[in-house]
């Protein structure tokens, strides 16, 4: 019994130590590239690549692609965030391998089915993807990185994300608790 408690305690990194390490990673990103971390930007790169490959002429006239081109010259996949996110997959995999957490599974509350969990994950993903474009970055690029450089918009987006999730938590409680 005592042993199992000990294992539970050491399962994940202490959150404050994790936070300091994540802060150092974010600091390194700023020191190297002059910008913070990000995630949704890499997905935007991939979407722009697909659109400009499938329909090169019509897509270049779209406001979305034009807006992307203003800040990214050249191959949309050869950007900082695309390489960073490839690293995230490698880093997450290595951590999971060391901790013995590599396993294919659908994680959900016992109160709901796997199918319902996947359906909600899809819906949540669509909303998050859309919102990240409107908000010019997600939790990483807009909220976390924005806060580190004291961006007013970063703080506003952070409060809007967490405030909304708190406000809606009651309606989604069965999915989590």
């Amino acid at each position, binding site marked *: 019994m005592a042993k199992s408690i000990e294992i539970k305690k050491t399962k994940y990194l202490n*959150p404050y130590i994790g936070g300091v390490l994540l802060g150092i990673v974010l600091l390194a990103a700023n020191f*190297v590239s*002059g910008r913070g971390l990000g*995630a*949704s930007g890499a997905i935007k790169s991939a979407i722009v690549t697909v659109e400009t490959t499938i329909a090169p002429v019509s897509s270049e006239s779209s406001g979305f692609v034009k807006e992307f081109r203003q800040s990214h010259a050249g191959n949309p996949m050869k950007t900082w965030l695309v390489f960073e996110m490839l690293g995230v997959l*490698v880093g997450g995999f290595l951590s999971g391998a060391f901790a013995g957490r590599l396993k294919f599974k659908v994680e959900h509350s016992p109160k709901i089915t796997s199918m319902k969990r996947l359906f909600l994950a899809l819906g949540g*993903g669509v909303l998050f*993807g859309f919102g990240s474009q409107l908000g*010019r970055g997600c939790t990483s690029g807009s909220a976390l990185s924005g806060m580190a450089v004291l961006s007013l918009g970063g*703080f506003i987006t952070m409060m809007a994300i967490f405030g909304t999730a708190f406000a809606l938590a009651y309606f989604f409680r069965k999915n989590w608790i």
Partner: protein
Amino acid sequence: MGPLSVNELISENTNLFLAFIIGIGFGFVLEQSGFSSSRKLAGVFYGYDTVVLKVFFTAAITAMLGLLFFSLFGWIDLSMVYVNPTYLTSAIVGGIIMGAGFIMGGYCPGTSFCGASIGKLDAFVFIGGLFLGVFIFGIGYPIWDGMYLAKFLGSPKISTTLGLTDGVFAILLIMVALAMFWVAEWAEKKFPREEY
């Protein structure tokens, strides 16, 4: 000295290579902290697991202080560091939509890649949703570009907006974070949790 790539102290390819290395650190720390688990992430909204709040604010403060001290020591030129622009309307509306996506899907984009990297199938589906959401934003861009570009305020710092120096604001933020950590520790004792 820093930022290295903006000052052209490193080549573009070195910059991209370092992006990959920094990404490995990013993914590793996220996974080690438990951000690959959607139920752990969602826990902050019910008080049973507040790891998100603790890691998120500790990271933001660490990086903020790091940048301020690096600047003080002359190691980085903060005027060359990107400050996210503020478009008031889209920052709020985008944040609200993302918040809804967070409580519904249990991940944010970065953590979903982290979850997928250790085999979480719900994370793979969430990523599929992300692609769809970004695609929808792209094809409907003319419908919402008015909102996207509304209320542009430039790239103000929150410290300037509040009439504080960066240092004073940093101290206030640290105090707010400590108060939140105290509430978080209390909540974790109050609300039952299970390990997953």
